[in-house]
């Protein structure tokens, strides 16, 4: 039982990191960035490329190296996110939802098969591997790498929360989410704030990609597809557009999946997760923490 909870928490923290990017972008420009999961994949491959170009890394340095590579990867995926926004999404900002969504599907395809064309379709083994002791706590097997990764995720999320709540850019983000026209009138540079949002969201996903590569040890060009769907589910469960909701939703989804797999068998895990998504959307589309939005015509 405690093992179940721990496994759920661990996977959930990955979901939460990716869900944050989904939720931030959606909250601010109401865009469902379908390609967000593929940014996670891109992050893993950037990390892979950085580590292979560095050559052999002594095992003792692996955590330090990992952090450096993670920062590099975050910078690059953040930039990729900004570029995607500039090239694919911004020209369509006034366009119908359908057009933007289809573009997002196109971006997702381009990222997946672009990486596949460059790095090859075969899965790659990640050059460094987090390994550490396993110890037992309240009946759950917990490993050192798991704790390190969850700490990194927590630090990133706390930093983000601070950024959004306490800085002027964060305030600008929140105000754009509330009312873009009024923000514009108040002298907020809307485009630059949107760019920053994309940068931060993509950087978080990139960090998650490197973490997944280092923990699981295998990366491939389709690894972002399912996790992107799951992150969206997490964002919806928590209340899309709500940053704390995204974190909460990630953890909740992690639990729900762990329990679903326990009850129905591992091969039904994804079915269970999507069923939860559909249930939430029909019964409580605003999620756990979301506020009811009145539709104005």
């Amino acid at each position, binding site marked *: 039982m405690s093992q179940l909870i721990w496994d759920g928490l661990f996977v959930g923290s990955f979901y939460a990191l990716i869900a944050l990017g989904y939720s931030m972008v959606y909250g601010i420009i109401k865009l469902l960035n379908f390609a967000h999961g593929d940014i996670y994949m891109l992050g893993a491959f950037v990390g892979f490329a950085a580590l292979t170009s560095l050559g052999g890394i002594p095992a003792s340095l692996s955590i330090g190296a990992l952090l450096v590579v993670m920062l590099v990867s975050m910078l690059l995926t953040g930039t990729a996110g900004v570029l995607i926004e500039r090239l*694919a999404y911004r020209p369509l900002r006034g366009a119908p939802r359908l057009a933007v969504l289809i573009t997002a599907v196109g971006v997702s395809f381009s*990222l997946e098969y672009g990486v596949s064309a460059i790095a090859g379709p075969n899965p790659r083994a990640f050059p460094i591997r987090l390994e550490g002791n396993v110890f037992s706590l309240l009946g759950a097997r917990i490993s050192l790498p798991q704790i390190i990764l969850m700490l990194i995720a927590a630090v990133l999320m706390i930093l983000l929360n601070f950024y959004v709540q306490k800085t002027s850019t964060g305030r600008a983000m929140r105000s754009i989410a509330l009312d873009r026209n009024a923000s514009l009138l108040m002298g907020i540079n809307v485009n630059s704030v949107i760019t920053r949002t994309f940068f931060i969201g993509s950087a978080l996903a990139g960090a998650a990609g490197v973490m997944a590569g280092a923990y699981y040890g295998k990366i491939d060009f389709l690894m972002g597809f399912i996790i992107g769907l799951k992150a969206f589910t997490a964002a919806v469960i928590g209340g899309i557009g709500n940053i704390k909701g995204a974190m909460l939703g990630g953890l909740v989804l992690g639990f729900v999946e762990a329990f679903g797999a326990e009850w129905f068998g591992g091969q039904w895990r994804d079915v269970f997760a999507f069923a939860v998504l559909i249930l939430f959307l029909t019964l409580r589309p605003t999620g756990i923490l979301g506020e009811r939005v009145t539709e104005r*015509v």
Partner: protein
Amino acid sequence: MSENVDTTLAPRMTRPPSSRLSRLFESRQLGWVALGIAVSAPFVIATPYALNVMTTAAIFVLLASGLNIVVGYCGLLDLGYIAFMAVGAYTSGIIAKAFDLPLIFTIPAVLVMTVLAGLIIGAPTLRLRSDYLAIVTLGFGEITRITANNLTVTGGPSGIFGIPGLLKIGDFDLQSPAVFYYVTVIIVAGFVLAAARLGRSRLGRAWRFVREDEDAAEAMGIHTYRVKLLAYIFGAIWGGFGGLLFAAHLSAVSPQSFIFLQSALVLMAVVLGGMGNMRGVVIGALVISLLPELLRDLAAYRYLAFGLLLIVVMVFRPQGFWPSLGYEPERRKPDIPDPAGATEASR
């Protein structure tokens, strides 16, 4: 402005088509020409491979025309359309195999199952906003595939194989490649025609109204939920028959054929051809299904090209290569700058 008001996807066409060529392309009889080409193609080349590719393309046209009802006419983005094809293929395959029936007798069952599937998927989701709908349909598509992979009645991961042919009376077998191709062409032509007619019907107008402005449509007395559900059900039926033909064509159905990539390919055909315009969609479907066969060696780059093409088309020509005409011209004086900035900011 509210969240769910979309500006029109329709081209800003204010003049009737002027050139002779474009009038030719708008000619109502173009469908007959296409049918003529489809019917005479086997006289040019009738190797098993060519017939196989042409049959596959025809089935793909059927799928694209069905998705066009949902995406093109009604403006609902469905990313799990292939699930309906799976329902049709599995229903016909399982029943035909269990009772050793020719596939043609499974049509009523396919009809019932696909309508049910349309209802099950549509009823809870169609109240959602359009972007939620996209993800939910994607989820449903995956659920369908994984379920087919896990159940024993669907044959698990191997799927079902050795499915009986469409119909066989004495020596006359609909399954011989050339005959089957013609049967497929006739069925597909019927469905495409029906879809085009639906688009011009009262219901079709309601669909377009919902696509252009759901709130206004609701205010004008259109039961938008019911209209959307109908689009879904029609789309499902088209997909189901695509599945039936697919099962008959391959004599085998396996979960691998219903992955997300397939849904995306059908969507690509609809988007490239021109959402809402059945002729464009047919051409789009032919291009999407025939091009990879011609460029078999470039398989690795095909999806990359498709992805980039989607972005480019949406950014530069969102109405597709061959959009539908016949919309009300927009009433806006040309000298007033587009207030896109303002409308954009309010979404």
